[in-house]
């Protein structure tokens, strides 16, 4: 903890000087047996190094989108540590590998929800959670419900790329080392952005191909290539929720096939594709679920899929189960039933990993839910949903704890 030297314990008494016509508060020095006076003005200090693992949850906070926020959680204690205010309709944060900064592309209006629009790339200090710098970018940042694939850091951590949608599609490029906007590139038909390669980005296109750009530090294009169509976007499109391990990105299609893409400065190639949901399971209407369907533990090569049973149009509904696959054998090695209905998952990257889920908690006993459902339908129940972060043991799926009340629509989980 640190104490603001300008704040004295007696500062509260200033009130009587500022406000006339009120009686002053009488205080006395604490006696031996009394509880001591507390120091005034203290702020809890934070150090990334004090925690083995942490996790960020980002919340677009619909319908109060001007309060886009990110919450920092210690998953081992369940404690809420801090938060960031991210402006109107946030699509998430980026976490540079140095652990010293948090990067956020934000939209603000001069009159909160009207007036002049300003888009800025903000760098927060990861110790004080205060703004360290702010770069003005074109006021074109995309506001979309699913946060993944809306921005990316380059692998060398020097460039930040942001997806724009006005509804014309383009990419904004910022050089983080010199805190400057350096380029806007039109990328028609190819909105979502994924990293891979020193200063390369890969854009997912509506025809099933990827468009790869490589930039120099000034934003000049030093390489550009477009892959063939690597999947069928009309028959079975892939979700934008991908996970990465080295040069490989894994995506899942709406029907449940995994696509292993190799992405580097040379472009994007399909390394393999196979079903995570078998034909039999599809007949039983097992489906992908939620917003962030996949998680990947890099060292073990285990891939986690959020699933539930429901017809194809429910691919965005909350999941009830997580299935665990071995990337090498392609076998399903575990199937966990989750404690709560879950809209996003992630895993920590340590050796005894935790599985994170954003759960839709209904603060009502089951029999009451049935009663309400039968008498009034599902709407009043959905209205009571409160989202929180649920923490499970990734090794056996056992439920550990929850961090309740994380805003109105948290959807992205990022281990830190």
């Amino acid at each position, binding site marked *: 903890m640190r104490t603001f030297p300008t704040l004295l314990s007696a500062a509260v008494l200033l009130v009587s000087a500022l406000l006339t016509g009120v009686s002053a508060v009488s205080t006395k020095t604490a006696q031996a047996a009394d509880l001591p006076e507390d120091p005034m003005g203290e702020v809890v200090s934070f150090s990334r190094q004090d925690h083995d693992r942490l996790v960020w949850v980002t919340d677009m906070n619909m319908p109060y989108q001007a309060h886009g926020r990110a919450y920092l959680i210690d998953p081992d204690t369940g404690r809420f540590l801090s938060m960031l205010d991210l402006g109107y309709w946030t699509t998430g944060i980026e976490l540079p590998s140095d652990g010293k900064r948090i990067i956020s592309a934000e939209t603000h209006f001069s009159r909160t929800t009207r007036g002049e*629009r300003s888009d800025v790339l903000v760098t927060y200090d990861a110790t004080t959670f205060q703004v360290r710098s702010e770069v003005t970018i074109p006021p074109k940042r995309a506001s979309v*419900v699913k946060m993944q694939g809306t921005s990316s850091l380059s692998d060398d951590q020097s460039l930040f790329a942001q997806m724009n949608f006005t509804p014309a599609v383009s990419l904004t490029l910022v050089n983080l080392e010199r805190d400057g906007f350096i380029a806007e590139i039109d990328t028609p038909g190819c909105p979502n952005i994924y990293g891979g390669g020193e200063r390369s980005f890969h854009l*997912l296109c509506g025809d099933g191909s990827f468009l790869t750009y490589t930039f120099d530090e000034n934003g000049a294009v030093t390489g550009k290539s477009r892959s063939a169509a690597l999947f069928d976007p009309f028959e079975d499109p892939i979700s*934008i929720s991908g996970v990465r391990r080295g040069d490989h990105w894994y995506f899942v299609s709406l029907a449940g096939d995994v696509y292993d893409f190799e992405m580097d400065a040379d472009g994007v190639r399909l390394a393999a594709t196979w079903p995570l949901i078998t034909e039999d399971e599809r007949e039983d209407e097992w489906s992908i679920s939620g917003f962030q369907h996949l998680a990947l533990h890099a060292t073990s090569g285990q891939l986690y899929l959020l699933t539930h049973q429901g017809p194809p*149009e429910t691919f965005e509904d909350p999941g009830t189960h997580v299935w665990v696959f071995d990337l090498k054998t392609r076998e399903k090695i575990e199937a966990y039933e989750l404690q709560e209905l879950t809209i996003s998952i992630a895993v920590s990257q340590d050796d005894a990993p935790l599985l994170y889920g954003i759960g839709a908690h209904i603060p009502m006993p089951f029999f009451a839910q049935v009663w309400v459902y039968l008498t009034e339908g599902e709407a009043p129940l959905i209205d009571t949903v409160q989202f929180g972060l649920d923490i499970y043991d990734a090794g056996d799926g056992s439920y550990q704890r929850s961090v309740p009340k994380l805003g109105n629509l948290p959807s992205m989980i990022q281990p830190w």
Partner: protein
Amino acid sequence: MTWFDTFIEKTARTTARLSSRRSVVAGIGTLLAGAAAFPLLPVSRVRGEEVANDPGDPESCDYWRYCAIDGYLCSCCGGTHTACPPGTIMSPITWVGTCLNPGDNKHYIISYNDCCGKSGCGRCGCVRNEGDKPMYLPQAANNINWCAGGSADIIYNCSTAIIIGVDDDA
């Protein structure tokens, strides 16, 4: 069948430790069947219009036109299912869905134009994803804030469901 049905079933499983799973789920099924026997009370149409071959309540998420919607129903926010609330502006372009009208058994192409310029209405939230596609296929993507295409910038208030044609291919 929406995700809440799934949820009830799932919670039934979790609660199975209190009674046997099978009996709880069976019980729900029975109760649901009983509930279905009571017809819903008729809800008068917005502005009093009863349209014979356009059945349903535009203030309910179940209304057939909302099959691909994701947002707040303008009909609960001062607008109607085809018009924006006072003080907002309709975004000219948006995503479209194809919905089956049970009144004439035809498929219609529905344009879900967003109303923009006031903050999220927050009433009658409705998420239905028939035919919803990822955002790199934007013409069918309901996860995009389509206020981006309008003159009120990206301040999203609610969504409409406008018939723009009949789909002969469906």
